[in-house]
């Protein structure tokens, strides 16, 4: 249990940090998909790292989420932000990132 926020309408420092990290990671995921799709050189480089570009892509997302989560949690950066805005940003980022993927592969 994360202490210190039981009676406050605020996310704990750890949770806020990982929410911010997830927001960045979902947007990074879509951006990397776009760049990879338009750059065979990057696609091949990512393939050379793990044997498949998709495996590298997933690992990059996961590492980014975990590392940023630790950094944002420990630095207290996310905690200073309004918790409601962090949640709204995560929802908006997910919607934009998901639509961005669908529209890219449908029309580009």
């Amino acid at each position: 249990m994360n202490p210190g926020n039981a009676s406050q309408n605020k996310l704990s420092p750890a949770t806020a940090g990982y929410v911010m990290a997830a927001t960045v990671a979902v947007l990074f995921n879509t951006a990397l998909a776009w760049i990879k799709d338009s750059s065979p050189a990057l696609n091949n480089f990512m393939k050379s790292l793990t044997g498949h570009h998709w495996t590298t892509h997933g690992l990059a997302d996961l590492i980014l989420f975990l590392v940023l989560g630790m950094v944002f949690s420990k630095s207290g950066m996310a905690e200073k932000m309004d918790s409601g805005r962090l949640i709204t940003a995560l929802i908006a980022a997910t919607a934009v990132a998901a639509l961005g993927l669908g529209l890219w592969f449908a029309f580009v």
Partner: protein
Amino acid sequence: MNITASDLILLAHAGFGVTGCLAALWVIVETLNASSSNAARIRSAALLTAVCIAAAWIFGGYWYVHFYAPEKALILKGPWPFAHDIFMETKEHLFFITGILAFLLPIATRDVLHSNAVARRLVLAVASLIVVTGLVVEGAGAVIGHGVKIALLRGGAQGGTK
């Protein structure tokens, strides 16, 4: 009966994916009724969501890397090439978003939900996004499977008439 490793891995991928979505739905229901008595259950359901989506990631990733290439070739030669070009391409990247959200969920449920409205809102938002994106991914999987099926059926029909 002839069930291959490829079949089992693919079914495990879809099965864990849908179980993860159901576990996220369970988190939503429990969180709407959050109290001190169901706090442990909410955390267990959130952990189950993360474990199931992680398993779906591993099984799906293994199948995609090792077994998908021949099916991709069939789809692209068949009447529904968009089953790969749009649906698989979107699914294979959208799944990462579901995965990130699933790993965030157990962290979000560590806050004291029954006395913290913002923490409850976060858990409801994350779990809902997992359900929605997860179901989109499941639906895309069905379209991809159908793309293979009609490539085989219509390819076979064409082969029979020529």
